[in-house]
């Protein structure tokens, strides 16, 4: 198939709309999706990420996900689905895992499994590589690993969210990068009651059966109070309906455990603070 100037301009426009002119001007690369060498780059990526286990099957033979072999594809649509996923289904978006070149190579590989007929968009495409995320210092990297360490049942991320990851039981920490000093963060971690972020003061609910539950209030209305019960980690979100509640009071003590100063060594604390301050 001859690649016409019309399609070329359409594709470049589509590309610029998709990825933003800034990125594409920063780095551009010409990729021919019909190039077997380029498609072969997609084969191992497909095997590791798409064929896996119960998903699309080896060489797209079908699985929990649909069969990909023997089908007719529009390469732009295919690329977008791989990149963004399909909402409310088990098809995830891969933009956070694979770079654009990787996704294009999988696109080329899948087209190669198809019927052999090509949509116009399956010709040459210009693409820009994603600008790499800011590289973290080794300290901040260690801090990030500690913050999200799944083998630690008291890790920070059980309660705190930072840059779109972690739970929202405690204060979100992304904005803390600019507003808090290293010393203030150190104090927040080792002496949580020294200052308590607004909206995260401890609430105590006295329940009709005599139980007293303290934690962080998530929400309340005429019908009920929702409270993260911080007596346990991970903290359950408990709902108390008005007819169960005998009383509600506040406290100046933080719901955050006081043990983090002992749990982490000084250098580990410094690493975690470096990560919070890194602005990744």
């Amino acid at each position, binding site marked *: 198939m001859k690649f016409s100037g019309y399609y070329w301009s359409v594709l470049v426009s589509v590309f610029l709309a998709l990825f933003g002119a800034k990125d594409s001007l920063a780095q551009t690369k010409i990729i021919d999706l019909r190039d077997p060498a380029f498609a072969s780059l997609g084969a191992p990526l497909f095997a590791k990420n798409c064929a*896996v*286990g119960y998903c699309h*099957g080896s060489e797209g033979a079908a699985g*929990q996900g649909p069969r990909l072999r023997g089908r007719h594809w529009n390469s732009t649509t295919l690329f977008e689905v791989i990149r963004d996923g399909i909402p409310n*289904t088990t*098809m995830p978006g891969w933009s956070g895992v694979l770079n654009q070149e990787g996704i294009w190579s999988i696109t080329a590989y899948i087209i190669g499994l198809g019927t052999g007929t090509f949509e116009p968009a399956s010709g040459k495409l210009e693409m820009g590589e994603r600008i790499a995320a800011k590289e973290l210092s080794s300290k901040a990297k260690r801090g990030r690993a500690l913050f999200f360490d799944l083998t630690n049942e008291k890790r920070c991320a059980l309660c705190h969210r930072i840059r779109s*990851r972690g*739970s929202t039981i405690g204060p979100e920490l992304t904005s803390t990068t600019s507003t808090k000093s290293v010393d203030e963060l150190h104090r927040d971690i080792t002496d949580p009651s020294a200052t308590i972020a607004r909206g995260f003061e401890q609430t105590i609910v006295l329940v009709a059966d005599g139980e007293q539950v303290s934690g962080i209030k998530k929400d309340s209305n005429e019908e009920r109070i929702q409270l993260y019960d911080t007596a*346990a980690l991970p903290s359950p979100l408990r*709902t108390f309906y008005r007819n169960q509640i005998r009383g509600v009071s506040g406290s100046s003590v933080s719901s955050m455990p006081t043990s983090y100063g002992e749990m982490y060594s000084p250098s580990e604390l410094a690493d975690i603070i470096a990560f919070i301050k890194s602005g990744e």
Partner: protein
Amino acid sequence: MKLASFLLLTVCVVALLVVTTVRGEEPVSERLVNAANEPENWLTYNGSYESWRYSKLDQISRHNVKKLIPVWSFQPGIVDGGLQATPIVVDGVMYLTSSLNRVFAIDAATGKKIWQYYHEIGEFPSLYGTWNRGVAVGHGLVFMGTADNYLVALDAGSGREVWKVEIENGGQCGCGITGAPLLVKDKVIIGVNGGDSAHRGYLNAFDAKTGRHVWRFWTIPGPGEPGNESWKGDSWKYGGGSTWLTGSYDSDLNLLYWGVGNPAADFYGEDREGDNLYTESIIALDPDTGKLIWYYQQIPHDVWDFDSGYEIVLLDLPYEGKKRKLIVTPHKSGYVWVLDRTNGEFLNAWSLVENTNWIEGIDRKGRLIGRNEPVVGEYKLLCPGITGGRQWNHGAYSPKTGWFYSTALEWCQQIKAFPEKAREGMSFFGGEFKLVPPPKEEAHSHLSAYDPVTGEHFWRYKSKYPLLASQLVTAGDLLFTGDAEGEFLALDTETGQRLWSFQTGSGHRGSPITYSVNGKQYVATPSGWGSAVAGLLPQLWPETEYFQSGATLFVFSLANFGVSNEVRSE
């Protein structure tokens, strides 16, 4: 206040206290321990703590089963992933879950909905789907694990949320929950999937009333703990070991039994040299503390993605002339293991399938002989494949016949391993596979009656397509199950003869139950094709790509109870 009023008030308060105390101390555990003695209910996932999936109800029997007709149906409204649940029935109310973590309370006699709860699913791992296999009920609450790794407790009467807890972020861990919880005394025991992701598995217990975490048993020991030496380097951090189905409980021994799944990377084992404890093991824990009492590892250093997560059937039967407390547990490898459940001693292992070459056999001490492992870079024929010599859907045991009923799958795979580095929460298979028929026959499936200890089989019911639904056996000498083409079947437990069937319009991947309300026996079955394995079938049977998905619960009872419909029964 007048004396009479005061006395009346006192009496009321005392009465209230008594009622509260009785209700508060309602012996949930005792009721569950004796679940088999209230066959009008289906109180827990596997029917009883012994996981027999057997009911003493016999109103519907081999003599009148032809009069069985549908009396109501229920549609959760989501067909993706089919309908895989075991419904729970307590005192005339059915609790049913569906894909996307919907929970419904339904009048078990009429099918009228009482309440619904839709969990809002957040980040979840795509590998394991959004289907759900059921709830646990007790303490006035309904408990469900979710695809995004929450455990949720709902008020059984109103469906209102009482507590929920995010066990671990599903997006980060690549894990979630599809299995049903098990309620043991005042604790909700809940497993996790994620065994094919770079994830370290666990089993958790939460306080039923408050949702507070009580204990965690890591299925992979950490540094300094016994068993950690069975993992090379840091491989323990991402070694799989999921607990994705539901265990059993022996109240006399106070032991909780749970199966632990495969190690990861599934097919590439060089980076995790060693036995990889406690993957591919049956673990026996103290349910009060989560402490390990004993374990038995069926497959040291698994490289086939088999699973020890299937039902753990507790039987008290003679073994070599002496009555023993046994575990009989089928396995994805196609073998059934027989263990002493007091101490984990290996007694026997027998095969459900004829097409098997992953090992040559198992010796009298339980050791695997002649391991046949995937190799890096080239395809190799191995039977059974990753899809198993049996699927997770559960078998059943009838004390009337003394037989264990199970499906088996005769199929193979071409498999190739490749080195793979762990990426936290991402898929971690280390290989790829294609389903192929066995070398000397067509791929097929069968359902058979076995001696649970020796594996001797007494009858066999064959099916062209894989049988992927659970079995239910009853004192009416009936076995109920469903097939891929949508037929819901009743077989004679003694002969395997097909006595009755009903076309439900979509294939079966769930678990039928039976119960009664006001003296009338019902049989309920989920119908709805879906799931990962169902999706793989077109590799062997291309036409199955067009098998319709669905999600409907069908409920049947005998036609002569008020409804005359002789025409419908064949």
